[in-house]
């Protein structure tokens, strides 16, 4: 190994493109995936930014924004000591009448607003909640105002023919599909007009976090037509649904593979040229009877250190680019993404090294005698 490191250091100009290629691959994978994760984390905002421990829904609900009506009476299943609070949660798409003309599909989200309520997103202040208690009062994201054709707080418009008034705005809650419209449970009911005694979700708060799995398991046994999921699981389900449904996952996969291929080719070329440059030296070692495995070890060692150096360079780059990226978008870099990006690029670097080993077939000591 020490000879590999010495070689890498003293011929760094030669190895630099390979190191850079590895760094580029890691960067591309991490940022591509991070950006996509960030993008699709938007779909689970209503779950992630609210306070429920468990979401009870219709079993065919693939994502939080695609809720279906369920009987409010299911709340009776939740009469158990581990459950401290249950509340209904109304949600559905509706056409927003743009005052400037035209329509826009929006996602109406109505929840309880009182003290200790689980449904409202954190961004709704006490003031917002007080204002939302008025019938027809709504809050939207500041950044969606243009899309919704409104210019200021206090503007009136209609959703599915029901008059609403914007009483405040929030930040950072832009959505992927229709803009979110936050309101009280009653306002949502009046807009969405569900069948009587129906709701979209039931939100559950448990006595403690440890009770969540117990309660979920028990609910599953009650009724097979019921879906109960811990908030985190429902969040993952929602993101996964959109990731796969929109085929963005495929686009991501292709982009990542492309990046990997570029990385692999450059790394391979680098290691190959380094190996070719030393073929005569290797041939001397072979003439002296040094077993082949040591030379193989040297080349593989070089690819290992090229990989490691590339990853070392990529880590601060990924960090800083993620920060830059977060200004305009959202980049999520969970630990498993780091692990995956690092191990995939490392594997590619090592494979490139193994491929470069093929050039060692040209090591013929006799060619040194001419």
């Amino acid at each position, binding site marked *: 190994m020490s000879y590999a490191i010495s*070689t890498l250091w003293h011929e760094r100009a030669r190895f630099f493109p390979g190191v850079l290629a590895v760094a580029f691959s890691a960067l591309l994978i991490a940022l591509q995936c991070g950006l996509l994760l960030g993008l699709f984390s938007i779909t689970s905002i209503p779950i992630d930014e609210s306070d429920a421990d468990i979401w009870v829904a219709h079993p065919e609900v693939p994502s939080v924004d695609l809720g279906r009506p369920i009987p409010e009476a299911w709340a009776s299943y939740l009469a158990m000591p581990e459950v401290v609070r249950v509340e209904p949660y109304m949600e559905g798409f509706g056409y927003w009448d743009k005052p400037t003309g035209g329509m826009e599909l929006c996602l109406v989200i109505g929840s309880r607003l009182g003290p200790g309520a689980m449904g409202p997103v954190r961004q709704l202040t006490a003031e917002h909640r007080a204002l939302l208690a008025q019938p027809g009062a709504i809050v939207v994201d500041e950044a969606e105002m243009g899309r919704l054709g409104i210019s200021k707080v206090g503007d009136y418009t209609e959703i599915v023919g029901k008059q609403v008034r914007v009483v405040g705005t929030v930040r950072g809650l832009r959505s992927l599909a229709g803009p979110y419209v936050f309101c009280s449970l009653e306002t949502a009911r009046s807009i969405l007009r569900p069948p009587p005694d129906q709701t979209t979700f039931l939100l559950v708060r448990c006595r403690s976090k440890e009770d969540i799995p117990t309660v979920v398991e028990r609910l599953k046994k009650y009724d097979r037509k019921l879906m109960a999921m811990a908030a985190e699981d429902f969040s993952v389900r929602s993101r996964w649904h959109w990731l796969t449904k929109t085929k963005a996952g495929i686009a991501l996969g292709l982009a990542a593979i492309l990046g990997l291929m570029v990385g692999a080719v450059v790394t391979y070329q680098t290691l190959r040229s380094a190996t070719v440059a030393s073929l*005569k030296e290797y041939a*001397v070692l072979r003439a002296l009877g040094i077993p082949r495995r040591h030379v193989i070890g040297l080349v593989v060692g070089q690819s290992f250190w090229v990989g490691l150096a590339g990853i070392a360079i990529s880590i601060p780059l990924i960090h800083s680019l993620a920060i830059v990226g977060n200004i305009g978008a959202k980049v999520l870099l969970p630990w498993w993404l780091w692990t995956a990006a690092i191990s995939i690029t490392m594997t590619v670097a090592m494979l490139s090294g193994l491929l470069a080993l093929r050039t060692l077939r040209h090591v013929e000591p*006799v060619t040194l005698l001419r």
Partner: protein
Amino acid sequence: MYYDGSRTEPTLRAWGLCKSFGTGEMRTEALRDVGIELYPGQFSLLMGPSGSGKSTLLAVLSGLLHPDSGRVLAHDQDLWAMTERQREEFRLRHCGFIFQGYNLFPALTARQQLEMVLRWGKGYSASEARRRADQMLSTLGLAKKGDLRPMQLSGGEKQRVAIGRALIKDPTFLFADEPTAALDWKHGEQVVELLRAAAHDAGATILVVAHDARMVPYADRVFHLDDGVLAEGVERPMAMFADSRDVAAFGAI
């Protein structure tokens, strides 16, 4: 200690060696029924015009190139009856090589070039390999150059490192193909002295391909190869040194 050829068994015996390259019009007979016996402690020169087959003979005798026919017995083992693996092992135990180019790893220090052979070839520990490498470097007059890389060494110094790499595992055979070709005579002479010492002091069997007739006085034996035919002694000096540089050199003796 001087090994007298008449009282010792040869360490290397070869006979009936033939090797040709190409077919038909392109066919070259590089070796024609060559036989040779080499003794331990002898520094032998192999001379001859360009293209006469010197490198080919060296390769066949050292187990690097399969002859078309003939046998090579090294330490009474039939080199070309061995498997590739056995031949490799034989070279590891017994053979040192010096080639025309220095063929040193550009990124490694002089010491590392030598250590590498001991650590990889003999499985020596890092400290033992280092000790022996330093010892070899001072024998070669390179005691202060251990930490330098090939780029920082002169041609003569590089060739001495290459010689050190060939000698460090105490080979019983040392094969050198024009080791002084790239050096001026002052440095070439140093190299010849080193090789001669390796033969006379360590009892190695040394065969050196050379063009330069100034080396002849240093040699115990001189072989001459002409168009694939081997003869001992400098029988036809003027015919042997085909180019003018060599003729001049020969005249200087």
